């Protein structure tokens, strides 16, 4: 690094003395070697930020608004063991190993985060960096980021031949030494105790050199031992890799970065996201752009330490190893039950015999009917990006050695994650016995080639298994739902009037500017019963020319949630409101959601209105949008609205309006269907909960009224109209929603299954043809079959997603399911963040207000889209999981026989779907007394072949199953279990 230091005085307004040096390095990226020269300014005005330092607190730097940042490190920092009051300086490795400790409430206050450490951490892991940044942002733990690299005295230059790591370690020690001298000097006249500056490091060499410099320092473990509750804290430290010189098996090593980059460029390696099968933890698939069908990844060795959701690089295996997807149900706990967590290195084989047998599939047969089922197989050769997060699970009681319970020494135990797709995680703990039977949150830290299972660490216990609070929290954590109460800074963004907020009485009030007064319109809302967050309301009235005026009025959330506020970023990060059976986790504070923004009847509310003029045949003559003020005349439930329509005696204008709406909605729907919109199905059930105790009472399938469809049609229309408008105004940055056409291959299996089992044909050439052929897939004896097929067809489709218009070509905008060329979400801003963005863009498109630049910033919007897509998916999963949990609870004390359909057939079992509860689950034939044979070509299992009790269990067959809930012996986990009752399988 060149070092011509030139002293000079910088800008008069800052008055700081700066000197400049040059940072010279080689950037080696994508095979290029580029010399980079950057200026690096060194200054003397970076504060130490100790409230005890009289010099630095007098001379605080100001930002452009003139605000100062007050000193962060407290006057009375904590003590521990023999260390008096001290500020902590952890090195990078300590943050990597113990971020959970840093976040823990019981210790680690007054911490100095060095810039060197922060930069190193950022290169190691962006999520860790973000967590550390969040810690330093929140005041409570008093983490101060000290920019040592920019301070003259603490800047360290790389010496000839010195490695980057050594240089950084030296920088850390230099900064510690400086802090000590600085505090000694500045506090020489002070009567208070000068706090120590304590370096935390696990690197013995670094500790030795620090001691030589006179810097107080210690090892992380030694420090934690002096803290209260050290057992818990020690469990939270990431385990060091043990000396594994004797390991006898190993996963294949990952390829080198350069080989990966080269291979992807040439095209013999492929990158994609690994998706582990729900029924077989040893089978994964990766969809890559180069191939139409996903690549199969079979077996532990091929999956090679990758986990569900990881971005991996795979190499296709030779054609002789191509296979059909597994036809077996393989569950991890049944196969690896006896693995020993303490010493899994002892075993010689990477792939155990049981696993080998579980996977032993004969290579693809040359059976012509099965030809399309042969898929390319591949192996993982590198993991580009880990999808690791915290996982909820429980301790495998069998993995605890008995002497560990007695001695309380630290032992390894297995954590079995709730998510079947995640392998067991090895964690080290001293409190194994205490943790059994609890829901545990743990993180994955590493996965060595020499370790069969990933290594992780304990974070905290949520509570007892099956306790409602613990299970609900587990579910929220598992689906990454942010359920913490809103922070004060978010609540501060709410109107100060609180619940007393009213639409200003005077129309001269500035808040009325640009708003239309629609208070006289006969507006009403139609929602599910008990709905509190009323997003939308409707009206219709005949016009003198014979046409109709129809209006959709949406809560004006963007009036209350302004861009770049704490509330906005919180909503953006939550993305959506999450509905669980007994709980709603709001995206926006409840004051807005259920009061100020909720379009409740009889009160005036701000709204955003879309108003159309339509002919009686629902042809749109004119569309306009306006901010407005409305007063809803009535809040109906679907059922009430239906009754009102059907009640011939009611002839008031409001009822007439609803009737007009219904008629127009039918016309709209007919047009949509003619254009090829799909009528899809997903199992929807409702769990009735007794309100007091919120214990589930019973489960019913959701009913649908004509009025459901009425509301839906107009919401679709509004969304489509808004999408077109904002795309016209912001071609590069409109927030839209698309639904990609599914590749035809996705339907191949289902079409074949229908052809073989039901002699029905499925045509997925276009959405129109698919819709028509789905309509034709009927069995007059079995009306539910059609719904079942729709459910299965839905699973073949792609997920709809939010996107920013500038990132796709216009033909890609199409919404396949709705058969419209453009679509967005605009009608539920209370519970979806995408709608808030659409609101702001629409408001700007009609010149109501200028558009905030963050809504024009394509990369920023893309990040928003990515997040809300993920949140949206997670919210759906969480909702479903919640229903499943409650069904389990509801069935706890009942056993009953219900109708079910065979939905999937494996060689050793099958999956049934129970319409009544909307749940599905496997039935194993592993322990069956009856003999069975797998007829793969016909998707059937033949029971008791050749005897008089011969039965064929073919796909789609309706059977009677016995439903009960069982507690799994090894885990204490309650799950719904099925047993085939008719035909009877013993």
């Amino acid at each position, binding site marked *: *690094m*060149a070092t011509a230091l030139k002293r000079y005085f910088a800008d008069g307004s800052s008055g700081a003395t700066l000197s400049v040096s040059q940072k010279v390095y080689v950037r080696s990226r994508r*095979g*290029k070697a580029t010399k980079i020269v950057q200026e690096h300014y060194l200054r003397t005005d970076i504060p130490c930020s100790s409230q005890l330092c009289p010099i630095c607190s007098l001379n605080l730097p100001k930002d452009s608004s003139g605000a100062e940042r007050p000193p962060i490190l407290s006057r009375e920092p904590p003590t521990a063991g023999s260390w008096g009051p001290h500020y902590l300086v952890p090195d990078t490795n300590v943050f990597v190993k113990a971020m959970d400790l840093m976040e823990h409430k019981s210790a680690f206050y007054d911490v100095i985060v060095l810039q060197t450490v922060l930069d190193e951490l950022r290169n190691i892991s962006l999520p860790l960096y973000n967590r550390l940044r969040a810690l330093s942002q929140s005041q409570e733990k008093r983490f101060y980021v000290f920019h040592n690299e920019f301070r003259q005295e603490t800047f360290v230059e*790389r010496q000839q031949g010195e490695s980057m790591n050594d240089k950084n370690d030296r920088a850390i020690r230099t900064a510690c030494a400086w802090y000590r001298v600085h505090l000694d000097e500045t506090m020489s006249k002070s009567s208070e105790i000068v706090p120590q500056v304590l370096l935390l490091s696990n690197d013995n060499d670094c500790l030795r050199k620090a001691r030589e410099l006179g810097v107080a320092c210690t090892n992380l473990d030694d420090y934690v031992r002096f803290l209260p509750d050290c057992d818990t804290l020690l469990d939270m430290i990431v385990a060091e890799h043990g000396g594994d010189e004797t390991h006898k098996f190993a996963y294949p090593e990952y390829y080198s970065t*350069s*080989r990966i980059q080269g291979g992807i460029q040439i095209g013999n390696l492929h990158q994609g996201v690994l998706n582990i099968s729900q029924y077989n933890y040893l089978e994964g698939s990766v969809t890559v752009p180069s191939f139409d069908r996903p690549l199969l990844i079979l077996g532990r060795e091929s999956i090679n330490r990758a986990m569900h959701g990881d971005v991996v690089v795979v190499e296709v295996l030779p054609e002789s190893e191509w296979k059909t997807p597994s036809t077996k149900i393989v569950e991890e706990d049944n196969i690896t039950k006896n693995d020993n967590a303490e010493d899994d290195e002892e075993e010689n084989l990477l792939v155990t015999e049981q696993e080998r047998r579980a996977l032993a599939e004969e290579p693809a047969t040359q059976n012509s009917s099965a030809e399309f089922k042969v898929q390319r197989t591949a192996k993982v050769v590198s993991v580009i990006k880990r999808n690791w997060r915290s996982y909820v699970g429980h301790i495998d009681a069998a993995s605890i050695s008995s002497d560990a319970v007695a001695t309380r020494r630290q032992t390894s135990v297995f954590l079995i994650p709730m998510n079947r797709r995640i392998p067991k995680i090895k964690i080290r703990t001293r409190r194994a016995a205490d943790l059994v039977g609890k829901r545990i949150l743990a993180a994955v830290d590493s996965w060595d080639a020499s370790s069969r299972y990933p290594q992780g660490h304990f974070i905290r216990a949520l509570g007892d298994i099956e306790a409602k609070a613990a299970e609900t929290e587990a579910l929220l954590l598992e689906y990454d739902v942010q359920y913490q109460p809103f922070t004060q800074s978010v609540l501060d963004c709410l109107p100060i009037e609180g619940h007393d907020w009213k639409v200003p009485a005077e129309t001269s009030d500035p808040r009325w500017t640009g708003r239309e007064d629609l208070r006289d319109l006969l507006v009403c809302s139609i929602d599910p019963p008990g709905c509190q967050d009323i997003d939308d309301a409707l009206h219709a009235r005949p016009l003198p020319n014979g046409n109709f005026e129809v209006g959709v009025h949406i809560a004006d959330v963007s009036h209350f949630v302004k861009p770049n506020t704490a509330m906005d970023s919180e909503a953006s990060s939550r993305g959506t409101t999450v509905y669980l059976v007994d709980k709603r986790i709001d995206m926006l504070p409840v004051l807005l959601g259920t009061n100020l923004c909720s379009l409740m009847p009889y009160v005036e509310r701000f709204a955003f209105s879309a108003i159309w003029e339509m002919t009686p045949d629902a042809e749109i003559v004119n569309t306009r949008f306006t901010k407005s003020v409305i007063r809803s005349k009535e809040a109906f439930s679907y059922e009430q609205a239906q009754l009102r329509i059907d009640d011939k005696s009611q002839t008031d204008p409001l009822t007439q309006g609803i009737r007009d709406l219904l008629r127009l909605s039918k016309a709209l729907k007919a047009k949509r269907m003619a254009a090829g919109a799909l009528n899809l199905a997903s199992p929807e059930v409702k769990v009735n909960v007794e309100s007091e105790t919120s214990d589930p009472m019973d489960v019913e399938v959701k009913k649908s009224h004509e009025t459901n469809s009425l509301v839906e049609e107009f919401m679709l229309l509004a969304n489509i109209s808004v999408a077109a408008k904002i795309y016209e105004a912001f071609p590069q940055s409109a927030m839209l929603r698309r639904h990609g056409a599914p590749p035809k291959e996705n339907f191949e299996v289902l079409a074949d299954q229908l052809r073989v089992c039901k002699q029905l044909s499925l045509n997925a050439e276009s959405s129109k043809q698919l819709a028509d052929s789905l309509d034709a897939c009927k069995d007059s004896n079995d009306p539910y079959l059609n719904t079942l097929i729709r459910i299965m067809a839905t699973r073949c489709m792609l997920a709809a997603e939010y996107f920013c218009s500038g990132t796709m070509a216009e033909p890609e905008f199409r919404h396949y399911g709705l058969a419209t060329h453009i679509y967005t979400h605009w009608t539920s801003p209370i519970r979806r963040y995408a709608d808030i963005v659409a609101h702001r863009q629409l408001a700007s498109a009609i010149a109501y207000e200028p558009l905030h630049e963050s809504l024009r910033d394509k990369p920023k919007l893309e990040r928003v889209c990515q997040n809300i897509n993920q949140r949206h998916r997670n919210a759906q999963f969480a909702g479903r999981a919640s229903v499943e949990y409650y069904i389990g609870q509801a069935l706890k004390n009942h056993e009953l026989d219900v109708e079910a359909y065979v939905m999937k057939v494996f060689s050793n079992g099958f999956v049934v779907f129970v319409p009544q509860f909307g749940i599905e689950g496997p039935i194993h034939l592993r322990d069956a007394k009856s003999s069975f044979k797998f007829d793969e070509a016909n998707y059937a299992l033949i029971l008791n072949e050749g005897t008089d009790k011969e039965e064929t269990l073919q796909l789609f067959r309706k059977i009677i199953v016995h439903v009960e809930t069982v507690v799994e012996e090894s885990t204490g986990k309650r799950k719904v279990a099925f047993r085939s009752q008719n035909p009877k399988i013993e």
Partner: protein
Amino acid sequence: MPLSIAEENYLSTSLSQKPPCRPDGRDPHTFRPLDAAAGILPATNGSARIRLCDGGECIVGVKAEVEVCGGKPVEVQCDIAGQLNNSPLQSFLCTTLESAVRNALPPSHLSISNKYTYKLYIDGIILDHVSHPLTLLSMTIFLALLNTRLPTLITEDNTDENDEIGLPQFESDWQQSRLLCDDWLPPLVQLAVVAGRNVFVDPTGEEAAVSDGGILAIWHQSKVVGLRTVNTRDSSRQVFNVKSVATAVDVLTQTSREVENALRKVVAST
């Protein structure tokens, strides 16, 4: 400004007489004083600037980029102030110097792996020139190449069969970069003009205009490895005495050595 016929005659006579008389009183084998600096542009792999006392000035920057083997290893381009691109002078300078550097360059010095190699982009800017810019540009390129450094490759120990598809990785520490010219020197191209039996190095614009013609010599590894006549005046007359060509080779051998040493001192001092 063109010379009048009388001026031309006077100059021509003074240069051809024995001993010759140069307008600025210089010895025929003496260079004019010049101002040279190396390593002036930190963002390049190597750079240099030379300024002559007549105002002529040249800046050269060298960039080394990683490319797939097979292309040409060196590209010389220059931009001459006040002239359009693709002028005859420009292409003459570029092709002459490009081939000189290419022939002198030991091929192994740019090699990275059997698939990748460095390619040197040598770009010159001639801000102003009164005399023929060839010598000026050549000296500046020489100086720039002398302080050109290349990032070092991090050699990976896995030498499996797939290695040739791997992209190269480089050491991030610039201090560990290596000199391009560690055990060889770049070539120098010098221009001399001939008037009668006399040979003049570092000719001024006027001297070139009245001379019989120019001779360029490519100097590399202590010897002249290429020789060419150059038309330095507008008229087509270009007749050399054989003896003066031999003299020119001697003179250029001598002066090139001196120039080379002087320029190496410039780099050594920075």
